[in-house]
C-alpha cells in the first residue's frame, strides 16, 4: 500500500460505524450482532467485524455484542467511540453510555431504562413490543435490530431481512419477520420523537 492509498483509507476509516448491543445475557444480543454483521458483510458487500464479551460478564447484567461496519478494511476490531448504543437494561446504559460519540445515539428500552444521560436518546418499548405485539419475548433482539436499522440506516432493510432469515431457527421465520416489521415501525415513531 502506498502512503497515498494509506491516506485515503485512513480518511475512510473515519466513516466507519461502530455499534454496541447491550443488555442481559440471554436476550439474544450475540445473535443480533451476528445478524447485523452478516447483513453488512454478506448481503451488503461491506466490511464488518463482530466481537462479543465472553466469560462471566457475558452471563451477567451487561452483556455486549459489538459490530463495526465500514466500506474499507477494518483493522483494530474493537469499538472505540460508539455511533450507536442499544441498551436493554439500566446497567448496560450506565456502563456504556459514556462510550458514545458526542453525536452518537442511545437507543434504550423505555421500560427497563429509567434514567438516561443527557445525550441524544430514543426510548422505545422494545421488550414490550416483542412480548405483547409479536407475542414472544424471545424476539426482543430482532425487534431491536429492526428499530436500530430503521433509525440508523446503516444497512438496508432488505439486507437485514435476508440475514435474519438465514440465521434464525427453522420454523421461526414468520415470527421473526413480524418482529422485524414491528421494530421498523418503532423506528418511525422514534424518528418523530427525535424531530420534536
Amino acid at each position: 500500500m502506498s502512503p497515498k492509498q494509506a491516506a485515503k483509507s485512513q480518511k475512510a476509516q473515519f466513516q466507519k460505524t461502530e455499534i454496541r448491543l447491550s443488555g442481559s445475557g440471554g436476550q439474544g444480543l450475540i445473535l443480533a450482532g451476528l445478524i447485523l454483521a452478516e447483513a453488512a458483510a454478506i448481503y451488503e458487500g461491506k466490511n464488518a467485524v463482530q466481537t462479543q464479551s465472553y466469560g462471566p460478564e457475558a452471563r451477567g447484567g451487561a452483556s455486549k455484542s459489538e459490530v463495526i461496519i465500514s466500506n474499507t478494511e477494518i483493522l483494530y476490531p474493537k469499538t472505540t467511540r460508539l455511533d450507536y448504543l442499544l441498551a436493554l437494561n439500566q446497567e448496560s446504559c450506565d456502563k456504556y453510555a459514556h462510550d458514545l460519540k458526542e453525536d452518537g445515539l442511545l437507543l434504550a428500552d423505555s421500560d427497563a431504562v429509567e434514567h438516561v444521560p443527557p445525550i441524544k436518546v430514543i426510548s422505545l418499548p422494545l421488550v414490550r413490543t416483542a412480548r405483547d405485539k409479536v407475542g414472544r419475548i424471545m424476539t426482543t433482539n430482532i425487534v431491536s435490530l429492526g428499530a436500530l436499522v430503521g433509525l440508523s440506516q446503516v444497512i438496508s432493510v432488505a439486507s437485514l431481512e435476508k440475514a435474519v432469515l438465514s440465521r434464525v431457527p427453522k420454523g421461526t421465520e414468520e415470527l421473526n419477520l413480524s418482529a422485524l416489521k414491528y421494530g421498523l415501525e418503532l423506528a418511525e415513531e422514534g424518528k418523530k420523537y427525535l424531530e420534536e
Partner: protein
Amino acid sequence: MTQPLVLNYLRAKKQFPHVWCPGCGHGVVMGSLIRAIDKLALSKDDVVMVSGIGCSSRMTAYVDFNTLHTLHGRPIAYATGLKLARPELPVIVITGDGDATAIGGNHFIHAARRNIDLTIILMNNNIYGMTGGQVSPTTPYGGRGSTAKSGNPEHPFDISQLAIAAGASFVARTTAYHVPAMDRLIQQAFENKGFSLVEIFSQCPTYEGKWNKRGDAATMLKYYKDNAIPVTSKSKYSEEELKDKFLIGILHHTPKAEFTAEYQKIIEKYQIKEQMTQLSQQKGKNEPEASSKESESPVSED
C-alpha cells in the same frame, strides 16, 4: 528340526541382545503373544504394536510388526488415535504397571470406558525396573523398593478390578508361569471386539525379587504357581484360603458396543444427511426462489 516359530516374528540383527535381564518374565510374554498372533493368522503387515516407556515397552523394537514406541504413560492414547484412524488394523498395546496405571492411569480408564478395540498386554512386575527398582502403584502395602526402603506405606491397585470398574469388556489375568493359559487368554483377548486387558504377573528378579527377598526367577515363578487360583475353581476355596492368593483366568467378559464401530455409524448418519441436503439443494436450483441455506446448521440464540 524346523526353526522356532518366534523367529519368524522377530527382527534380526541389530535389535538383539534385548534389554531384559536374565530371569525376567517379559520374554516369555513376548513368546506367548507371538504364538497367539500366529494362531490367529494375523498378517505382520497389519499388526500394530504400540508401547510406552519401561522394560516391557521395549518389546516393540524386537518384533517385526508396525511398531510405535511412544512416551511414558501414553501408549493407550496413541493407540486410540491410531485405531480410530485405521479401525481395520489390529492394535496391541504393550505396557507395564507404572506406565499404564501411574503416569498413564487416566488414559487406561478412559480407553476402557470407551470400549475401544485395543488389546492391552500389561506386564505387572510391581516395580519400576527400567529406572532401578522404585515402588509402583501395584507394589503391595509394606513391599520394598528403592524409594520405599522401609516398606511401602501405600496400598496397591488391583489393575484387573480397575479395568472392570472402568468399563473394559474383556479382562483376564495370568502369570509368566502359566504359559499355555497365557497363549489362550491373549488369543481370546484379540477375539473380543472392545477394550481387552490381559494382565500378566511377570517377575522382576533383579529389583522386585532382590528388594523383597523373593529369591531367584525360578522361586518367583514357583510363587506364581503356588498362589494362583483359577477363577473357575474359586468356589472351592473359603474366603480365608483365598486371602493371600490371586485369581487367574477370564475375570470379566461382557461384550458391549465398540467405540470405532459406533463412530462409523456417526459418519454414516452425517453422510446420509449431507446427501439429502445436496439433493434438496439441486432440487432448489430448479425451483427459483427456494432457499439454499439448508446446509447451514441453525444457530441457537446466544
